[in-house]
């Protein structure tokens, strides 16, 4: 009773990747275990915590609620893709480092991808809007205050009004 395997072509962080997976393979598992992109984390596998959030054609999606086969022909961006090609931190990543926006780091990739998309839609969020932007992701460590600060700081870094502490202007996600 071997499972049928399907050929899947995914574009992840701008690179075309080919893999053979069963139809039931979750996108989160395909990214982590088949493509070794372990930056995407799985916290609940029922779409509530948001740790596994990746950008699918620029939109934040819970990769634990998608099959790998349904991501064919999509552009996927994971946390690994938020870093500049020279290895420098992107603005959201930089903001988290400056504002102590993370502790254990497990939920962080989902916040980074979510905020990256959020700031593209709303580049100058108010504090309330910053809270709203991260209101669908769970974090058990930080109490969120520094995550909200990180959103505001990232907005400043993106529009150039903030001075990055280590001269990084990270890659923009398409």
């Amino acid at each position: 009773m071997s499972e049928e395997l399907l050929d899947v072509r995914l574009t992840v962080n701008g690179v075309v990747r080919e893999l053979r997976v069963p139809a039931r393979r979750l996108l989160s598992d395909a990214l982590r275990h088949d493509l070794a992109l372990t930056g995407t984390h799985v916290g609940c596998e029922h779409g509530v915590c948001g740790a596994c959030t990746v950008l699918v054609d620029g939109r934040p999606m819970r990769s634990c609620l998608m099959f790998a086969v349904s991501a064919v022909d999509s552009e996927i961006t994971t946390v690994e893709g938020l870093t500049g090609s020279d290895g420098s931190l992107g603005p959201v990543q930089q903001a988290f480092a400056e504002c102590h926006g993370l502790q254990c780091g497990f939920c962080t990739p989902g916040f980074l991808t979510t905020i990256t998309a959020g700031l593209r839609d709303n580049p100058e969020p108010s504090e309330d809007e910053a809270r709203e932007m991260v209101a669908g992701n769970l974090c058990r460590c930080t109490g969120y205050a520094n995550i909200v600060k990180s959103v505001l700081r990232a907005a400043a870094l993106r529009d150039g009004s903030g001075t990055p502490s280590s001269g990084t202007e990270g890659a923009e996600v398409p």
Partner: protein
Amino acid sequence: MTTKMFGEKVQRVEDQRFLRGKGRYVDDVLVGHDVLHAAVLRSPHAHARIVDIDVSGVLDVDGVLLVWTHDDLTGAMAEPLPLLIPHPQLTHGRTQYALAKDEVNYVGEAIAFVVATDRYVAEDAVSRIRVEYEFLPPVVGLQAARGAAHLVHDDVPGNVAARLEQENGDARAALDAAPHTLRLNLDIERSASMPMEGRGTVARWDTDTGRLTVWTSTQTSTGVRAAVAAKLGLDLAQVEVVTPDVGGGFGVKINHPWPEEVLVPLAARALGRPVKFTEDRREHFISAAHERAQVHRVEVGYDDEGRILGLDVHFWHDNGAYTPYGIVLPIITSTQLLGPYKPGAYRVVFESLYTNTVMVTPYRGAGRPQGCYVMERTMDAIAAALGKDRTEVRSVNFIQPDEFPYDHGLIFQDGRELEYDSGDYPASLAKLKTLIGWDEFPAFRDEMAGEGRRVGIGLACYVEGTGVGPYEGAHVQIETSGMVKVATGLTTQGQGHATVFAQIVADALGVPFESVEVVTGDTRRMPYAVGTYASRAAVMSGSAVHLAALRAREKVLKIAAEALEAAEEDLDIVDGVVSVRGTDASIDLGTVAVLSNPLRYAFDEASKAATQFSVGDPGKAPVPEDEEPGLEGKDFYSPERSTFASGMHAVIVETDPDTAEIRILKYAVVHDCGRLINPMIVEGQIQGGVAQGVGGALLERMAYDENGQLLNASFMDFLMPYVTEVPAHIDIDHLETPSPLNPLGIKGAGEAGVIPSAAVFASAIEDAEGIPITAMPISPSELFALRQQHAVPPETAARKTAARKTPAKKPPAKKATRARKETS
């Protein structure tokens, strides 16, 4: 000039990899290698005898390599898992088997273990296992456990695992002689650590060398190492445990070994291939551990000022189905209940009871939130009865700054005296009152009332024994590159140890912060360690790292003095360079490291300087007697007793008159954890703790039905706070009363934020509503029900008030409904 790093808000070094998605959590280990995956069949019943297990057909599933039940286990593996912390009063301690033998005692207990090529296939195989059960009546909740109509374990009478009594003074006599007494019955429900990353273990057996490497998401790598070696019949030297990045612990990962923590290594050895187990969220809910559930009965006697003369507490602690972690939690509750106060006499009795639910082991706060809740409810009740301000009643009961060290005459969780080392509680309270605006609150209440809004203010004080022994150690090595490698054995779950320990080493050694690299929780680097619990990492490993760095420094000075032909006391180490004060003569630490290790063979330019024709006095041994080659320092810190941190929280809440929704308007924290290594990290710990506390007080509970089914075992149903549920801003003020017990004056800070939450919210909601709050957590629907329960027709209310015997001199009218607690 090297800047002093201790006390600075240094950005965390570990963030660089976390932010790039380059963290290595346990499920990331060996990805891309030929790793097998495990899945576990868990009991769907809370209490049942296992009549038969049919695994036929499981191995027919394509990709399945192994299926085990208890019958397949032999030797130590077939015995119950260890009882980690024995205690003479734990007369009926019970632990589970790695795979259930004959009986299951909670929904989620492991019954069978399957290994397959991937997790999907392993779960397919698990679903093929057929188990025949004979149902037994489940015991769920403390009431059922106390009633003991049914037993969890046949051979444990009354479901009582342990009974412990402690007394300081004669509490009964003090109560009898007291001018006023009160009785309170208080309840607190279950919650759980619930880290974002669940449990997980990976093991690789090296068939060539007969050695095992285990990666596990734990709070004690040395504990797991010892347990795995014992269970698998291996020498300690054959087992290494590496703690990778850990996605949160909050206590639950201090328990060990989990069944999977020994089954995975056993399977890896049996199959000769690496095996991985990563639990899913439902498994974490039903087969890891919970905490908190207790019921308390309090009797307190006090004088006209509210001074406690006698306190008698009897409580019942729900320890779930097994007691692997002993009775540490109720011991902590029974001792830390005292907080910053000094009752005239105190007696406490607890019973730790079995129920057919997930076992109970420490969750951040570890028994303290319950104790704090009980004591602070008692303080509020005394204030209400006397018609006094709640802060005044607390003030008259405080241990005063000149009374330290203060011995409570009790034995703490570590078997040592409960003796507080230092603190300044009156100063903390003064700061808290300013921060929350305590004295201005009545005016605010009136203003809000004018708008038809209902607000209340509450406060709660706690003392936390931190930095519990027995010990931690550290190793510091200066490499010839000048880089400093530091290892300590306890583990890290997000506290920023790589940063704060580097800060300590940078100062002690006189090197740039950037040149220090810290490794934690790797038994290959530091095999002697205990673990990360009881807010002990900064105190224990921080002190050990400091001492080890000083040892390395001594050696640096000795070698450099010889090389520079100067006296040791004339040397300074700044930015990794040793120089002779007032001269140009200097030598960098990398060169000192080269000189510390006399060589026969050169391998690069630097090492040439240490070879036999370059250095050394031909008349002396190349390595002096009593010295070792290499530039290293190793030391251990083992304090006589814990150091006691303290703090106070206050909150202003608004309760909706119609919906009973509870909103947080202001939250203030004053905390004293001695000297701060990194204030940014300490504040992060407090903010996180407060958020967890909000969850514990207002949202989270484990909803078991009468059959022992956990009805809310998902993030959809168990309500953890999102950003929308926590206070937008927390006002934080610090007090730094150094601990005299360790070289850096540090006290622990990790758990503090969560300790007073149930207490402070109960206090504020009671203040807003004028209804006694005696059970936590509290939801809007429960508050709504309480309102209806207490909404009595006006004439009945008047009669009740008149009939009540009250010792209060001037009871404020609004508190008239609080008299459900008996006064006499």
